[in-house]
């Protein structure tokens, strides 16, 4: 029954509802969010896997048919099938990001970690999942020690970069800058170069540029849900998040992490 109700809840979440949830977390009114997110993440992960196998069969069958001379008369129809598969693949990737990130939202294990080591190491691991050629990194020299869960910090960076890269479009770029304050470290992630072609192109554009309302609605939902998860994770590590622009297409995010008190600080 619980699984069914979760499934139902996932399907009926709208951007407005997600924004309300975001506000509830901000005001500390949403205690049972973490276990809910974990269950929802597992459900989404299973659903994505089960959808990918039949989609793979459809796409490969269409590719195979295009190679057969007797199917040339149906080539345009096969192209339409393949474009539809690409669109579905895009949506599944969006869901996969959200599903994976929700799993990281519980039980932080905070420790003092040197930020000058933490950020580059997390970025190196993320290069497996994100196109880091689109991210320009500028770190201040001698960043201080912060108190965070290193694994959750990696997820925080992943959400921030995924969110801003999604806002920047398929070809856009993002900038990540880290600087130190008196008792904090600021990490700013922002859209640096907007896409060459507007993302919301007219329907019927080639490839993934097909701008149907389904893709746009899903992308907006995914963006707001990412911000919700980002806030949960950052606040669980005693930090804060500021969003520049509207949540559906943020132009930038500013994360502030608390500097850890070290032995050297205590001596001073």
């Amino acid at each position, binding site marked *: 029954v619980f699984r069914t109700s979760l499934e139902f809840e996932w399907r009926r979440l709208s951007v407005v509802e997600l924004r309300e949830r975001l506000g509830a977390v901000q005001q500390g009114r949403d205690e049972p969010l973490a276990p809910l997110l974990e269950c929802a993440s597992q459900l989404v992960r299973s659903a994505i896997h089960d959808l*990918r196998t039949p989609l793979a069969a459809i796409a*490969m069958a269409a*590719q195979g048919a295009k190679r057969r001379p007797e199917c040339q008369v149906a080539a345009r129809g096969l192209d339409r099938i393949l474009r539809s*598969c690409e669109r579905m693949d895009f949506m599944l990737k969006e869901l996969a990001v959200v599903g994976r990130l929700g799993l990281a939202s519980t039980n932080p294990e905070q420790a003092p970690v040197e930020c000058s080591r933490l950020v580059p190491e997390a970025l190196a691991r993320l290069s497996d999942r994100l196109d880091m050629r689109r991210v320009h990194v500028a770190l201040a020299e001698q960043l201080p020690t912060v108190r965070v869960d290193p694994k959750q910090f990696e997820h925080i960076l992943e959400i921030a970069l995924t969110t801003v890269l999604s806002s920047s479009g398929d070809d856009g770029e993002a900038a990540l800058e880290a600087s130190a304050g008196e008792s904090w470290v600021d990490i700013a992630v922002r859209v640096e170069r907007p896409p060459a072609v507007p993302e919301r192109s007219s329907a019927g554009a080639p490839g993934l540029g097909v701008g149907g309302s389904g893709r746009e609605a899903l992308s907006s939902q995914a963006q707001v849900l990412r911000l919700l998860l980002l806030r949960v994770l950052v606040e669980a590590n005693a930090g804060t998040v500021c969003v520049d622009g509207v949540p559906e297409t943020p132009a930038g995010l500013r994360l502030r992490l608390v500097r850890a008190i070290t032995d050297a600080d205590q001596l001073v």
Partner: protein
Amino acid sequence: VVSASAASRPHPGRRVLVLEDDDDWRDTLGEYLTLLGCECVAFARAEDALRCAAEQPPGLALIDLGLEDTNGYDVARRLRSVAGCDATKLVAVTGFGDSATRASAAAAGFDDFLVKPLVTRKLEALVRDLRLDS
């Protein structure tokens, strides 16, 4: 078991083993590999695939990670110990593309990784790289 048609004349070095428990996906993959000029042997059960590999080692093995009777990681480890399969290119096929799954696949002995659904381009590259002299 899917095999190449006589008309496609697969090169002997292009023997591909597929282990996949989803019938439609297995049949589609087998037919596509045949179109690419491979001799494809496809199985739903790990034991059948291992027996076949021992009799005639493939150049390439595409193994689903989530099988009904076992998992692809164990199959990869067992395939590596089969005589003649040390040079077989082992490729994990999965719907999970996260770094943890990739790391587990590499640790189990897989050489490469295919994330469903859009795999044809990478599959064609893998087939092109198959040794042609075996």
